[in-house]
């Protein structure tokens, strides 16, 4: 009985959606705008969290060792460092590895390669690349390296304080998200208003019909159901339309984004999250559609 009624309500909702094309389309349009805002926000979030992660995972401290240091001594320092709780990992790069990397990185630069040749031997130093858990801990590591026995075999220590950059990006992200959220909120309110008005008009036009439905024994649920169903249906269609609409530009700008943010593939990110995005849109779309129908009915469809 319940499912039979649900099926019928769905059919009525679908019928009135088709019959009232004008207002359905207006609502659909503004709903798509809202969902687009939310989706953009989702993608921006993805890109910035990628950026922060990339920055955080860069090497914090590099310690270069004197030329003739035996490898075993360097490995001892590595073992000691790994005992410090602040340290996430320590990577040993031998002189040969360093040279290989250097040659690879500069393989398109004949000047550098030829000058390397001229030097005749490996000018690069062996190093330990150290990453800490917390950005702020780099100072402790530097301190430990300079004070311990290792100080005598270290040529130089390179470190970078990336905290200001990360904080800046963090602030920027929060800013973008706040503005984006406000825009989505604004659109969301517009959706509720438009949907509310649509439902109100529909109820007004159908008031005689609704009266007849009551007189032939239709329950409230049976009368209200189709209005809810219509709101939900517009939410579903808007979600699908928005997702499809995003496909094209996302693929178009993906290359551009990759140049700005090396390693971040926008299209890939979009595709691998497509079900989450669709789910997000469905929840938002259906929620808004049903909510506004509910408000209109509360006000205009007396029991």
């Amino acid at each position, binding site marked *: *009985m319940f499912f*039979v*009624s649900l099926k*019928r309500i769905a059919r009525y909702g679908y*019928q*009135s959606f088709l*019959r009232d094309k004008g207002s359905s389309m207006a609502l659909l349009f503004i709903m798509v705008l809202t969902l687009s805002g939310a989706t953009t926000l989702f993608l921006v979030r993805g890109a910035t969290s990628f950026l922060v992660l990339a920055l955080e995972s860069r090497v914090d401290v590099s310690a270069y060792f004197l030329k003739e240091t035996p490898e075993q001594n360097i490995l001892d320092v590595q073992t000691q460092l790994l005992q410090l709780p602040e340290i996430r990992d320590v990577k040993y790069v031998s002189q040969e590895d360093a040279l290989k990397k250097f040659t690879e990185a500069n393989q398109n630069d004949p000047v550098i390669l030829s000058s390397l040749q001229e030097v005749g031997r490996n000018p690069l130093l062996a190093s330990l690349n150290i990453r800490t858990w917390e950005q702020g801990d780099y100072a402790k590591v530097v301190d430990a390296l300079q004070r311990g026995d290792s100080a005598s075999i270290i040529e130089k220590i390179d470190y970078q304080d990336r905290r200001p950059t990360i904080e800046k990006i963090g602030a920027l992200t929060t800013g973008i998200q706040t503005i984006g959220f406000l825009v989505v909120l604004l659109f969301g309110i517009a959706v509720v208003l438009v949907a509310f008005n649509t439902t109100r008009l529909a109820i007004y036009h159908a008031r*005689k*019909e609704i009266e*007849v*439905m*009551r*007189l*032939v*024994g*239709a*329950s*409230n649920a*049976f009368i209200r159901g189709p209005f809810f169903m219509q709101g939900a249906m517009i939410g579903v269609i808007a979600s699908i339309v928005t997702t499809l609409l995003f496909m094209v530009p996302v693929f178009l700008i993906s290359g551009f984004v990759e140049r700005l943010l090396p390693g971040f593939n926008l299209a890939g990110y979009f595709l691998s999250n497509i079900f989450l995005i669709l789910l997000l849109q469905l929840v938002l779309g259906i929620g808004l559609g049903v909510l506004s129908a509910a408000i209109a009915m509360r006000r205009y469809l007396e*029991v």
Partner: protein
Amino acid sequence: MNIVFERVSKVYPPGSVALEDISFSIDQGEFVSVVGKSGAGKTTLLKLLLAEEKPSSGRVLVDGGNIGGIRPSRLPDFRRKIGMVFQDYRLLPHKTAYENIAYVMEVMGAEEEEIARDVTEVLRIVGLSDRSDHFPDQLSGGEKQRVAIARALIHRPGVIVADEPTGNLDPYHTRDIIHLLLKINELGTTIILATHNKEVINRLGKRVLTLDQGRLIRDEQKGRFVI
């Protein structure tokens, strides 16, 4: 279903008196006609029975329960026990003839096959099998009236209330519809029929309530149309 009107008056605001101090009772299975001039209060009386309007004073009792004070949540169930033919048809404009009739069974949660079978059958009975896909504004007055009648019969209610159901029908269809109502009545359904049609009343030879300016002036078991 036992129907009792107990000193019922209905005044439409601001001061139009439609019914005044009406009392009568109808037992299950009766065939009762309500006659009276235009504006005598026939439609109002039927509206009170369906709880579309509330009495200004007095009580309308159905099986002992006061319909004027019925809880809104109980209304759908109550109305499903009554089949109503409205004077102005009141078909749903965006539904076809078939869908209008089916709607009554749909709100009751009937099975799809049952609905298809019954609606097809009742459309055949009222002679509209070939009009089932027409929307109300694609139907003639008489056809609309017959859809309205079909809608009132479809769910086999205990009481059928028909407000001028033959107003737009030719003598041929009028005879058919009255014959149909009589047959349904023989099966135990209460029929309450409001009409202007003198011939119909006189041929029926059933109980007649005569209204005049909102008052019940006559209640005869084998009534004739006298105004």
